């Protein structure tokens, strides 16, 4: 059975053709690879492909199907796409809910909230300021919007990707 994987923006089909212990034969978009794949540390793999030694680190993303993959100098986002993921992806395109949420990409502390629920905000205005590691980041709106809900208060510690403000 084949799966689809999304690597950055590329979507490929992938399939295990055979395996014997750590030796795999895997097809990706019809190209066949023979690899020796060994997990050496938790989430760290040693791959031998045509006797070349690759070290790959996996960091699990928001769910078990999403990974950040580090090779020697590069980082890729990889998502395994199964039926559930496909459904979510199609839904996401429709309602575009993400764009209505202001979230900090990193953990930090809410320093300042400049509006309250119901306020109208002009394009380019800063809504919320978050500080982490001696650096402050301002989160602005790109178009005129209205503050629908504020989910945090000043002084709160937030996690990475945690929604802070919902706008409409």
């Amino acid at each position, binding site marked *: 059975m084949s799966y689809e994987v999304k690597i950055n923006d590329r979507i490929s089909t*992938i399939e295990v053709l*055979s395996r014997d212990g750590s030796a*795999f034969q895997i097809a990706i978009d019809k190209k066949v*690879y023979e690899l020796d794949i060994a997990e050496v540390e938790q989430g760290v793999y040693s*791959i031998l492909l045509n006797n070349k030694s*690759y070290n790959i680190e996996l960091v699990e993303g928001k769910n078990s199907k999403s990974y950040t993959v580090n090779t*020697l100098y590069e980082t*890729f986002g990889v998502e395994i796409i199964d039926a559930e993921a496909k459904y979510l992806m199609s839904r996401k395109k429709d309602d575009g809910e993400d764009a209505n949420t202001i979230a900090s*990409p990193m953990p930090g502390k809410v320093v300042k909230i400049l509006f309250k629920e119901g306020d109208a905000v002009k394009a380019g205005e800063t809504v919320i300021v978050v500080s982490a590691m001696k650096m402050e980041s301002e989160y602005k709106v790109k178009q005129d919007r209205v503050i629908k809900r504020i989910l945090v208060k000043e002084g709160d*510690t937030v996690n990475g990707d945690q929604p802070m403000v919902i706008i409409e």
Partner: protein
Amino acid sequence: MIKKVLVANRGEIAIRVMRSCREMGLQTVAVYSEADRKSMHVRYADDAYPIGPAPSADSYLRMDRILEAAKLSGADAIHPGYGFLSENARFAELCQQEGIIFIGPSPYAISTMGDKITARKTMIAAGVPVVPGTTEPIRDIKKAIQVIKEIGLPVMIKASAGGGGKGMRLVKHEEDIVNAVSGARSEAKSAFGDDAVYIEKYIQSPHHIEFQILGDQHGNIVHLFERECSVQRRHQKVVEETPSPIMTPKVRMEMGAAAVAAAKAVNYYGAGTIEFIVDDNLNYYFLEMNTRLQVEHPITERVVGVDLVKQQINIANGLPLAFKQEDLRQFGHAIEVRIYAEDPDNNFMPSPGIIKHITEPLGLGVRHDGYAYVGYEIPIYYDPMISKLIVWAETRQEAIARLKRALYAYKITGVKTSIPYLHRILEVPDFVEGRYTTHFIEENQEYLQPRVNCTDSCMDVAAITAFVDYITKLEKLQPDKAHKHLGNNWKDLGRKRSVLRY
């Protein structure tokens, strides 16, 4: 003699100080904020005292609580590290009052050098060169022209009330003086409501070069040569090396003497650093003095062969310096890079988080000063520096090769780090050839962009690895389903797979 040292700091520097204490047979005391209970300095110390909530103002800057911890623990000395209270004259004074040795210079030296204008005046009086310029605002065009002729072109005209580049004019040619002064004044007037300007010598191709000094309490002061710190991003040092690739023996001797004179001017004792701004012709000007240990002190330790923290402690004990200027020499070349928890490919956004793996670079010529460990969560409250990597080799070229080798093997997952960015810096031709100024990073943006070296097959390998991890997890959770999907050989997986689980 000091028997027990409280280190009023955290992170790598707290551990670095405690290491030297341990080698000297001294007991160590850690202080920690609520965010740092699991931090390595608490684990490394003999004793540990909580001093308050996570924000620095409530803990690492709380002089009262730190002094209380010193008294409770029986510490007879406090080492402030760098940052936090290290250049706080009041804290040094309080330690004195409480009968605790402050491992650092006198409160007088800290406060004199801490005030830029006083420091500048003290240096002028001591005959140490400073950047030529006016110290009083100028409101008169004739006066301005006269001053510019005294200083000599090029000069920078700056609005007195200014900031953000408004009212600034660079003047290179004599015929532009009048226009530039007038322009700067009118722009200053409209921006700040005040047309007063300063005039300062403009240093073309500036280099940031600093000299390490050590002084004892008996009036002996030596310098331990220079450190080249021109690779800076937003005034933050990124790479430091010694010797400086642009230095000559003659200028080194002169600048060293100037650094010693600067320190003598404030009866300095302890470890300190005199920062100079240096132009391409090796004209040098006093910039400021740091009255503490620097982040980049290890490159000096390596090339000169002196443990600076031990020297600090010996000096605080009232011992005379064990060496004279003529005993000191530089041997080989050392480079330091700072590893930050930040995302260099995303505007250097800080990247706090939990360390999932760490593979430290080891081997010949590599020193690694850090404090992170697997499972440690880098807190959001403090500086994002994770560690410092210091390499030494016989020559600069070999040191660069060794640093690249060390960075190649240095792996941290869980947080983004500046490691890939540092790699790129080491390959910029201006850096490789040793001709770079403080404009290095802005001038080399193109070289410093993330590069895509990856071929299609490398992308495929990344995808395949994630996929194999996924199906392995799946098989663990739903053994039947996995088997069904994956054919006959799949069963071998369960038998042969990793025995590494524990």
